[in-house]
C-alpha cells in the first residue's frame, strides 16, 4: 500500500514539476515575442521618422505631392501585428512615391542631405528586417510549443493561442529600389 502511495506521489510530483517547467517555458517564449515586437515598433518608428524627413526635404520642391504622401501612413501605440504589417506596407508605398517624385528633381536627388537620408533609410530597413526575423523566429518557437502535445495541454489551460507573424510583403519590398 505504502509503495503504491509513494509511486503515485512521485508521479504527481513529477507532473507538477513538468507543468511548472512547461508553463515557465511558455511564459518565457511569450516574453521574447513581446520584446521582439517592441523591436519592430522601434524600427517602424525610425523608418517612419526617416521617411518623414525625406518628405520634409522633398516639400521644398514639390509641396502638394509630398503632403499627399504624408497622409498615407499613421502609427499608433498598441497596434496588432497585422496592423503593423499594413503600416509597413504603406511605408513601402510612401518610399516608392518619394522615389518617383524625386526622379523629377535631379537637384534634390543629388543633394547631400537627401543622399544621407537614403543611407539612413537603408540602415533602418536592415534593422526592421532584423526585428522581423527575430520576431517571427520567436513566434515560430512559441507556436510550436503550444501546438505540440503535451505542452499544448498546458497552453490550453493558460488560454494561449497561436501568435500571428509579422509579414513583409515580399513583392512590394522587391519593388523598392534605391538609386545612388
Amino acid at each position: 500500500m505504502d509503495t503504491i502511495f509513494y509511486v503515485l506521489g512521485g508521479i504527481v510530483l513529477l507532473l507538477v514539476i513538468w507543468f511548472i517547467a512547461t508553463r515557465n517555458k511558455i511564459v518565457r517564449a511569450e516574453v521574447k515575442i513581446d520584446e521582439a515586437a517592441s523591436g519592430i515598433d522601434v524600427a517602424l518608428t525610425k523608418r517612419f521618422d526617416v521617411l518623414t524627413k525625406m518628405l520634409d526635404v522633398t516639400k521644398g520642391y514639390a509641396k502638394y505631392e509630398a503632403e499627399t504622401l504624408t497622409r498615407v501612413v499613421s502609427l499608433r501605440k498598441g497596434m496588432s501585428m497585422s496592423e503593423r504589417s499594413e503600416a509597413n506596407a504603406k511605408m513601402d508605398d510612401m518610399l516608392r512615391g518619394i522615389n518617383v517624385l524625386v526622379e523629377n528633381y535631379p537637384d534634390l536627388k543629388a543633394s547631400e542631405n537627401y543622399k544621407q537620408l537614403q543611407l539612413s533609410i537603408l540602415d533602418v530597413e536592415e534593422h526592421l528586417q532584423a526585428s522581423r526575423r527575430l520576431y517571427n523566429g520567436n513566434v515560430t518557437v512559441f507556436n510550436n510549443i503550444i501546438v505540440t502535445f503535451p505542452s499544448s495541454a498546458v497552453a490550453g489551460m493558460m488560454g494561449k493561442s497561436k501568435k500571428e507573424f509579422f509579414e513583409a510583403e515580399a513583392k512590394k519590398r522587391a519593388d523598392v529600389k534605391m538609386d545612388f
Partner: protein
Amino acid sequence: MSDILARLEHSRKTVANYYLLNGLLLLLCFLSFPLLIQAAPVVPFAFLIASVCMFLFFTLKKRKAYTTGFKHDLVESILKEIFTDLYFDPNRGLHNSVIKNTGMMQMGNRYSSDDYIKGKYKDIAFEQADVCIQQVTTDSEGRSHTTTYFRGRWMIFDFNKNFASDLQVRESGFTYAKKKGGWFTPKEEKMKKLELEDAEFNKGFNVYASNDHEAYYILTPHIMQSMKTLRERTKGKLILCFVASRLHVGVNSNDNAFEPPIFRAIDENIVNSIKQEISVITRFVDELKLDRNIYKQG
C-alpha cells in the same frame, strides 16, 4: 617578376644544397659510427660536429637571407598588386592583446605571430598575421605537453555596419574558442546561444550573441549564405568575432602562410600558390560584400 623568380630560385638552390650537404654529413656520421667507433672514434664525431657547425653558421644564415628575399621581393610585390596602403612586415605579428581583447579565444600561455599585413582591399581596411596560440603544461614527471589552441591566419576587417554588442560565430568543431554560453561563464561575459532560421547554418555554426537583435542585424540571410560558402572554400575551421564594429576572422588551418619552399622550384606555380594564400583575405571581403558600405554614415 621573372628576374625576381630567377634570383630567388638561385638562392633556393644554394639553400637546398646546404641542406643536402648537412644531410650527407649526418649520414656519414651514422654510417661511420659502427665501423670506426673502435678504430678511429674521432671520425664520426668530426662528421657530426661539422654538420652541426655548418647548419648553425652557414645553412641557417643562407636560409634566413633566402626567406627575407622571398617575402620582401616576391610576396610583397604580389601583395602590392592586390592591396593599397600596404604595410608588410614578415617579422612582426599581431599583438596578443588584439585577440585577447575580443574575449573570444582561449589564449593559452605561449603566443607567437608573424607575417603582419596591413592594407586596404576595395577600400576596406584590414590587418592579418599568422598566429600560433598554445598551452604548454608540465606533468608530475616533468614531461612537457603542448596543446595547440590555434595555428593559422587571424584577420581583422572593418565591418560595414555599426554595432555595439559582441557576437561570436564559430564553426562546429572549432575547439578552443572561449565558451560564452556555458554554466561556468562569468555573468558579465555570458552570451546567449542563438538558433537562426537557416537550419543548415545552425548545423555548421554555433552562434553566441549578447544582443539578439544585433545578431540578426549582422547575420542577414546573405551573410549566413556567404559564411556557408566560405566554410566550404577555406581550409581549416573558422571563428568569426564581431567586436566593436570590426570583424575578426580566425582560420585554424594548422599551417603558416607565405613560407618559401626549399625543395620545390620557384616558378609561376609558387606565384599562384602565394596568390591563393592572399585570396583567403580577399575572399572574406568579396563574399561578405564588406565593400558594400551603405549602412555606415559619416
